[in-house]
């Protein structure tokens, strides 16, 4: 009673049941792939290469954050640049007033006022801040670098200037008797005692609360650059010195010859300071350019990484759609086959024996 082409009833129904289950499982995966656009299980599909996408995502994360911080850094440098420009412009105005005073007999009051305005602009600009960070304080960014030279209660800087003057000439700069000071005495004072007020140590003690250390930032994956300039730069010191000698030493009361000595000294200093300012500006400009370039490169890298991650993790929607329609057809066929097999029973064809 055994035939060669024998098949048991359970294996017949098991076979269709198994194939339906298999098709349904693939269909669930394919539908997930279609809705997310990624492999149903990226880990299983990529295996050891999963590390590559993880590492590319790490890189992407990293350079995106560098780009974000670069934008902050750029804003800060732009603000610094505009402050520097204002300082330079004001220094230019002062310089032309000084030059004018050398040839023609202009009003000493005008020059003194110009010096005061210049000093105020300089200090105001050096005290400029962005997002609670003082731009010219170096790493001491929570401290305002400059005390107001002209404030009602004399600042440390004002006191040091007045003190040096009084020690040298035995009178206060406000005393009308300063008219008696000779040009050579004034020259000597300016070159020695007064100039010494702007030495490294005295500048740090009396004038500036800034740190010598500029703020540094990582502007690309490997490059760390100084992205600020500090109020301790010699350009600012010389400019302050020039402003202070015209506005803090009783300039208006001096005799004409002494005034000329002061004007000449101030002219030299402002000239040097202007050169220094240009250097500072171009130093920042170069860094700005580097940051901008890095950001452009990062844009390109982001594009590349995003694309590469997509290549690894994504599925081709066309392929998946085709796959789904094939699977659906298969599933329908399997259903109808099951139905037919169930209906196909010898019992239906057996008539009760008479």
């Amino acid at each position: 009673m055994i035939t060669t082409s024998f098949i048991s009833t359970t294996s017949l129904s098991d076979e269709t049941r198994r194939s339906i289950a298999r098709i349904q499982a693939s269909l669930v995966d394919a539908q997930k792939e279609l809705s997310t656009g990624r492999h149903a299980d990226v880990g299983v599909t990529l295996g050891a290469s999963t590390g590559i996408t993880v590492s590319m995502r790490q890189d992407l994360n990293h350079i995106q954050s560098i780009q974000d911080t670069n934008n902050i850094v750029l804003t800060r440098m732009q603000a610094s640049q505009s402050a520097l420009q204002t300082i330079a412009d004001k220094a230019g105005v002062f310089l032309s007033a000084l030059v004018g005073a050398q040839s023609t007999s202009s009003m000493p009051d005008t020059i003194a006022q110009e010096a005061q305005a210049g000093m105020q602009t300089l200090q105001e600009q050096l005290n400029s801040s962005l997002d609670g960070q003082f731009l010219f304080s170096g790493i001491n960014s929570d401290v305002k670098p400059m005390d107001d030279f002209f404030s009602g209660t004399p600042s440390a800087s004002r006191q040091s200037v007045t003190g040096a003057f009084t020690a040298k000439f035995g009178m206060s700069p406000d005393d009308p008797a300063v008219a008696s000071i000779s040009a050579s005495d004034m020259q000597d004072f300016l070159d020695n005692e007064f100039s010494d007020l702007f030495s490294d140590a005295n500048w740090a003690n009396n004038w500036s609360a800034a740190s010598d250390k500029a703020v540094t930032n990582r502007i690309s994956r490997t490059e760390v650059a100084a992205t600020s300039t500090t109020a301790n730069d010699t350009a600012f010191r010389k400019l302050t010195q020039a402003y202070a000698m015209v506005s803090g030493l009783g300039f208006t009361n001096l005799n004409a010859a002494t005034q000329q000595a002061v004007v000449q000294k101030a002219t030299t200093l402002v000239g040097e300071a202007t050169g220094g300012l240009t250097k500072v500006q171009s130093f920042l400009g170069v860094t700005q350019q580097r940051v901008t370039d890095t950001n452009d490169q990062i844009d390109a890298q982001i594009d590349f990484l995003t694309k590469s991650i997509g290549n690894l993790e994504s599925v081709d929607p066309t392929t998946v759609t085709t796959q789904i329609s094939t699977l659906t057809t298969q599933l329908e066929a399997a259903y109808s086959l099951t139905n037919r097999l169930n209906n196909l029973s010898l019992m239906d064809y057996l008539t009760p024996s008479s």
Partner: protein
Amino acid sequence: MALTLSVDTARSSLSATAEQISVVSRNIARVGDPDATRKTGRLVSGPGAGVSVAGIDRSYNPLLLNSYLNSNSNYQSQTAITTALDQIQSTVDETDLERSPAALIAKLNSALQSYSATPQNPAVAATVVSAAKDLATALNSASATVTNVRRQADSDIAASVDNINNLLSQFKDLNNQVVKGASQGGDITDVLDSRDAVLKQLSSEVGIRTVTRDNGDMAIYTDSGVTLFDKSPRQVAFQQTQDLSGGATGGAVYADGVPIAGTDHVMAISSGKLAGLVQVRDEIAPSYQSQLDEIARGLIETFAETDQSATPTLPPAAGLFTYAGGPGVPPSGSVMAGLAGSITVNKNADPTQGGNAELVRDGGISNPGNPAYTYNTTGAASYTDRIQALMSNIDAERTFDSSTQLPPSGSISSYAKGSVSWLEALRQSASSEADYRKTVADRATSALSQVTGVNLDEEMTNLLDLERTFQASSRLINTVDSMLSTLLQAVG
């Protein structure tokens, strides 16, 4: 007399047919039972005395049964492995969710980068600390997951061992019935079916080989050759381990006093759920655990603080990341078991625990009272050297334990990335292996079922045949009867 002989033959045919119909009905009744084999009545023709059913045979194919047992064992061991790997994979999750330790290290790096641009802002410092906390928490929970997987495997091993002992004692009863039935010549086909069913269940738990003796007695050995049953069941013993956290080793499984799994032994089994579970508990999960421990150790090392005095005398101390054994830094280059479970963010830097997040910039997290570990000596608000150094440290080459199956040197982020690769590669091969073994097991199941199973249509046609035989035999008796009555009338 020939006529009475014919009636006797027809009568024997009737009773034989009745018996065969009962066999058919047994077959039909068990058509849905995958363990049932097809029974046939064995007809013998006696010398002149008609037919009788001498015994019941069953369709039985030892080769196909063995291939089923083998493929089932192989499939079950692989299933245990893939299930565990899927659980472990939850510690990595989908790459685009970025929740793996590797992705969280990248996020911490990004947070540091942002902080370096606005170092005067304590709120940004707090985001660094919270990114660090995410990372520590992820490592803690990954470590807990791995321990759970091992604990689960350990208790599954215990359940499997119980099941094996249970099946072996069932097997003993059935085997005794077979031996007894065979010697008495009774119908033992159903008992044989039940005994085969027990074998099938046993093959799910452990890979087995069987030897059948002349009297129908069967002995069972593991695939490594250790006796599980021979005349009597052998005790399979296993002691569950209460605490499997941090690389603790689990107990071994013994059969008949011989270790068959859980230790290095020549008699170790190679297939069955038991083999898969032991592999998960003793190889896969511990390897991954040690990788997590190394990531934790690498992090502590990356963020460690050194003595900043002019002449350093103090040892490095754990900084942003610390652990139960802090503030000392764990010895470099070797796994410290269970470290991933105890790594935390130092509370001195955690604002939610009363710490100061800005210590990330300034240093001195290990001991804020000790100025030796302070990097930002002037207290400058925009001091970024330490932050930059931390970012460089993340990218810096360091040494990892070479026993973790990952490259022993590389940066902390590339090591963490390597761990993801390792796990996914394992999953990929395990999953395709499981697919393959499932196909083989399915084939073996259907091959066995096709040859030994019942086909309803076949039984129905057999039934028709038998019905006809019955009718014909009845008709024969009827005919002989009418012939005899004709004869009697003629005589009368």
